Every structure is written in C-alpha cells, then in structure tokens.
C-alpha cells in the first residue's frame, strides 16, 4: 500500500473588506494553516472612485477637493504635491507667508495623521479603546484649529496654486502656539501609556521586521521606510517649500519591526512640533496668495512633484496639453507602495501578528485605491 503523508489542510479565508482591523475596506485573502498564514493576497479597489479619471474633466482650481478625499487622514499633504506641481509648471511664486502657513498646517496634519494611526494601532493590538480615544482626543484639538482656519473638519480644500484660499483667522498663531507647546507632553503621555507595557512590547518588538533593502525595492517610503534604518525624508533630501529654513532631525530607527515604526512616528511628531514652533516664530506678514486667474491655463508640458506625506512620498505627475484641464494627473500614493512592501512580510506570520503588521504600516484605503 502506498504511503502518503497527509498534506496540511489549508483554509482560505477573507480578511476584510468588512473587518474591524483592516482600516476601511482592505481585503486580504489569506490561506491559513491553523492560524499561520501561508499566503496573503491583498485585494484592492473597494474604495476606488476613479480620482485620476475624474480630475481630467475638472479645471485646475477644482481639483484639490477631489484630492482631499484620497488620503482622508492627512488631506493637506495630498493637496500640497498637486498645487506645488501646478505652481512649478505655471511658474507661480508663492508668497512667503503662505509657505509658512502651509508648513505649519502640514506639520499639524502630519501629527493628526500619526495620532489617528496610533489609536487604531493599539486598538488592533487589543487595547480596549483607551489609547484610541486618547489619540482621537488630541486629534480633535488640532482639528478644531483646522476647522476654524479652513472652514471644514475633514476635506479642507485650503491650498490652492499660488498660496492659500484665504488668510488664517484671528488668534490662529496663539492657538497654534498653545497646541504646539502642549503636544510634547501629550506625546510623552502616549509613550508612557504603551511603551513600558510588557504586553505591548511583546506584541510589537521583533514583529514584522522589514529590512531596508526590500523596503526600498518595493518603493516604500515615509516612516515605514525610515523604521527600517534608511533615513530618507524628502523634506531634508530635496527641500521644498521653506523646509530648508528649519532645524529638524530625520527620525529613523533600526529593526524595521512594529515597535520601530511606532517609535519613528512618535519621534517624528516631536520633530514636527519643533518645525511648527520655528515656523510660528519666523512667520512674516503679507499676502497669502499670488495673483492667479481662476481658469488657469498651464503651458504644455509635464511635471512630477513629490513631497513628504505623513505616510511617505506622495507624488503628483501632471501632464498638461495647454488647456484648462490636466491631460493626465497620475498620483503616487505612499500607502500603496508601503502596503505592497509589507505584504511580503505576511506569509509565515500568525494572524495576530499579521493584524499588528498591517496596522503598523499605516495605510489609508482612500489613498491606495484612489
């Protein structure tokens, strides 16, 4: 009688799109052997709205609100790449003051985004909503400032080519300074809350280690890449806007595990606070918007503008045929590259580690699916 060894019974299972820990509508089709992941295939597109196609029918000034809806956690960072691309192609000069306000808001938005990552991350590790609500509370304070400034809580539509839609409101500087002075203590509190926790350390240290080379090969960027020990930060490496005037560190960590990603984001928030404080000190008076026309016609040509988004390199590639609408607008989303990079880590993991790793990458499905 022929001898045959039984093959392990594999189980195919959907993780997502409707799952408490997939941050929106990510769907990962898992092949499980018991609880160990044999194969993990991400399926995207559940939040696909055809942003790149829609914008081809819109005039340049109409596009930022659409981009807001891509990465709905760090909206201003989305807008920036695009408006800077347009400015570059049109040769517009942005007033100093607008640049400074942009930087302040961008860094605040980065912090907000990291808070909005920190909460759900701990939630996915199983902390029963406590740190989640702490994260959202801090985010709320910043969001109120944004609401007063831009008029919207989420889809700000505040940056426009040539500067800002309108000037900052009364008392913005004081409130921003107050927030910036308050934040370091808050970040310390968050670190104190989780970092000394034995279970948190057990769940994050050494989980999902990503080496820098693989990450680079997958085009990963942002905190995800910096956690793997590669300190690439566009704000430092090819300074845009007025970032070259500020003194800040590029945070990186070795190890590339979930803990390193957490640590990098925490450190990065401190650096952002520093930038905000410096920008508030240096902010000049003056107009916030260069003279432009509403129905802007870009000269024929193409431009690729990339900026350091909260999640990594966000690029906008604008092709103009000389009309009032872009011929093509290609958007490079950091979430997508980071997600794809992280997916090589997943096979061989167990389910809880998979959840922790995917959560630590910090993806926003609006950004990956566009």
């Amino acid at each position, binding site marked *: *009688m022929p*001898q*045959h*060894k*039984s093959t392990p019974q594999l189980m195919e299972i959907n993780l997502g799109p409707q799952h408490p820990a997939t941050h929106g509508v990510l769907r990962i089709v898992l092949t499980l052997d018991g609880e160990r992941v044999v194969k993990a295939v991400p399926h995207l597109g559940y939040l696909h709205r055809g942003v790149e196609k829609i914008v081809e029918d819109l005039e340049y000034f109409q596009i930022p609100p659409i981009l807001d809806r891509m990465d709905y956690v760090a909206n201003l960072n989305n807008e920036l790449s695009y408006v800077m691309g347009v400015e570059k192609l049109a040769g517009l000069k942005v007033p100093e003051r607008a640049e400074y306000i942009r930087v302040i808001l961008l860094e605040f938005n980065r912090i907000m985004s990291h808070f909005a990552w920190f909460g759900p991350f701990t939630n996915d590790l199983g902390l029963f909503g406590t740190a989640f609500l702490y994260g959202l509370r801090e985010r709320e304070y910043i969001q109120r400032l944004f609401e007063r400034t831009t008029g919207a809580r989420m889809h700000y539509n505040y940056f426009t080519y040539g500067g800002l839609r309108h000037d900052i409101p009364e008392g913005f500087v004081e409130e921003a300074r107050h927030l910036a002075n308050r934040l370091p203590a808050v970040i310390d509190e968050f670190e104190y809350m989780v970092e000394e926790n034995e279970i948190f350390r057990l769940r994050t240290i050494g989980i999902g280690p990503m080496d820098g080379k693989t990450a680079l090969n997958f085009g990963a960027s942002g905190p995800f890449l910096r956690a793997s020990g590669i300190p690439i930060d566009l704000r430092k490496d090819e300074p845009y806007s007025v970032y070259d005037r500020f003194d800040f560190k590029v945070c990186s960590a070795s190890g590339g595990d979930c803990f390193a990603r957490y640590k990098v984001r925490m450190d990065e928030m401190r650096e952002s606070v520093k930038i905000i404080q410096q920008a508030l000190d240096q902010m000049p008076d003056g107009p916030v918007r260069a003279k432009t026309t509403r129905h802007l016609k870009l000269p024929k040509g193409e431009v690729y503008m990339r900026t350091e988004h909260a999640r990594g390199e966000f690029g906008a590639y604008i092709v103009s045929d000389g009309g009032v609408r872009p011929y093509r607008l290609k958007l490079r989303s950091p979430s997508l590259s980071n997600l794809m990079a992280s997916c090589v880590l997943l096979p061989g993991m167990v389910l809880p580690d998979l959840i922790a790793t995917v959560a630590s990458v910090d993806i926003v499905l609006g950004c990956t699916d566009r």
Partner: protein
Amino acid sequence: MIPLQYYIIMSAILFTIGIYGVLARRNAILVLLSVEIMFNAVNINFMAFSAYITPATMIGQIYTIFAVASGAAEIGIGLAIILLIYRGRETVNVDEVNMLKW
C-alpha cells in the same frame, strides 16, 4: 431505597450498548467513544458495589478513581494512535486499517 440490582442492570445495558458500538462502528473515534461508554458502565458498577457493600472502606470508589485516571491515559494514547494512523493513511476507519505495518 434503590435496589442494587437496578444499578447492575443499568450498567449491564450500558455496557451492552458500548459493545454494540465497538463492533458496529467504523470510525475509530466513535469506537473509542463506545469504549468509554463500556468503561463507565464498569465504573458505575464499582461505585454501586462500593456504596452498597463496602461503604466504610470505599474500595469500589477508590478503584474507580484509579480506573478513571488510567482510563484518561488510555483514551489519550488511543486518540494519539488514531491521529498517527490518520496521518499515514488519511483515514480513521478501522476496517481499512488492516495491515500490521504502515
């Protein structure tokens, strides 16, 4: 007062059901469950005798304790063997496992 005979007859019937299960079942796990039934029929007997005949020294009861303990070891090993056979042969049917070596 329940007569001792009642217990004996009850456990005899239970034992018989177990025998039927052992003989008629094809699935090894079900065979093992039937063995457990027989096992417990015997234990009921022990307990009944202990309570009715030697209540002071509890001989039957202590016998049952040891029987349960060793029975636990037995079912453990039994299931492990079934698992091993399953791994080699992809079957838990006792009438297909008729070779001396696998």
